[in-house]
């Protein structure tokens, strides 16, 4: 099978552009997911869970750093510039991922919602599991290698969210109502998550992402199976703004302002 190295892609403008379309989505999803997870740090409902969830958020940022690192090697600029300085319209993360954990600012009086946090993270993890499994067969070698490594942690993240979903579904009426409510709200935002955007078929035919249709199908099947097992309503995912096309909500601008606040003081300085 043909395998592309960094040089093979960096020196071919068409491949380079196409690989980047996919990498922006992966990197931006994980950066924003990690950012939302980090907002919980020190504040999670149970101290042992605080530590456990802390690793998950950290690993999301670590995965984003791996993807931005590939983009850096493809000549798009430094990973830190890419993470901190790109504008809202350049971002390709799903709008589901950029939504806040709940009302309130992380420094003042956040009213973060655990059920929403878990359901949203669960959907992210199912999507990434499906996508990364396909990407292990990508023609672009560094991406395939990264997918392989990241998948191992993804399985663990997904198992963690699934455990919480089952726990909330089965405990009592209160936790179940909260889970159902979060599940319903997630469908309003989840539409662009399992969408590879305008370059979807080009990504497939180039071999960058093999089997796009079956990735999307696996994702929907796994979510439907969870709904069936837990007795949740079928999730009818809506697309409002489509993050894969650079359409975003107010929440993303606020997140970017925060995550780049220090770096923007002087992007050329050594921090």
């Amino acid at each position: 099978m043909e395998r592309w190295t960094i040089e093979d892609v960096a020196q071919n403008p068409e491949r380079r552009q196409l690989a980047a379309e996919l990498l922006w989505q992966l990197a931006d999803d994980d950066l924003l997911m990690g950012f939302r997870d980090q907002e919980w740090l020190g504040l999670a409902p149970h101290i042992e869970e605080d530590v456990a969830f802390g690793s998950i958020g950290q690993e999301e940022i670590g995965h984003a750093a791996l993807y931005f690192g590939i983009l850096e090697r493809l000549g798009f600029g430094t990973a830190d510039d890419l993470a901190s300085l790109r504008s809202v319209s350049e971002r390709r993360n799903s709008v589901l991922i950029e939504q806040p954990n709940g009302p309130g600012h992380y420094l003042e009086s956040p009213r973060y919602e655990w059920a929403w946090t878990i359901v949203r993270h669960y959907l992210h993890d199912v999507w990434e599991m499906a996508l990364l499994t396909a990407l292990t067969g990508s023609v672009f070698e560094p991406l395939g290698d990264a997918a392989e490594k990241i998948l191992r942690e993804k399985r663990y993240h997904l198992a963690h969210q699934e455990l919480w979903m089952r726990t909330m579904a089965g405990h009592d009426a209160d936790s179940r109502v909260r889970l159902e409510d979060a599940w319903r709200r997630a469908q309003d935002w989840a539409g662009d998550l399992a969408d590879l955007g305008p370059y979807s078929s080009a990504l497939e035919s180039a071999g960058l992402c093999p089997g796009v249709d079956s990735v999307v199908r696996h994702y929907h099947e796994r979510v439907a199976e969870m709904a069936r097992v837990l007795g949740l309503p079928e999730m009818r995912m809506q697309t409002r703004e489509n993050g894969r096309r650079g359409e975003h909500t107010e929440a993303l601008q606020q997140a970017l302002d925060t995550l780049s606040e220090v770096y923007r003081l002087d992007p050329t300085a050594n921090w």
Partner: protein
Amino acid sequence: MDERLDFDVYEVFAQSDSLSPHVHVFNVLASSPDMAMALAEENFFRRAEFVSLWVVRRDQIHQIGFHDREGFQKTPKAYRTTDDYKYLRDKWRYYRDHPMNPDGSPAAGGTVDGTMDD
């Protein structure tokens, strides 16, 4: 044989000194925790010393599954160890001999008086 004798398996954990964690040693067949304790002492500590001994019936132990174990093969995490900060040692040594001025420029002469204890 129509009827085999059956026992419980007890896993044995021992602590070599009070600051150390309990470490898994091996296991014994026994019919009660007391019996397991008595047997473990003589089977595994005829030479080594211990300050504390635990026996746990094996079916009381919950083990991580194969796929979950895979999740612990983590992506590199040097950022959470001191490995990435080894360069600091040389920097401190350098600035002890070449201290900075308040504006960050190198000072004209001399070292900072006194020691920098590690």
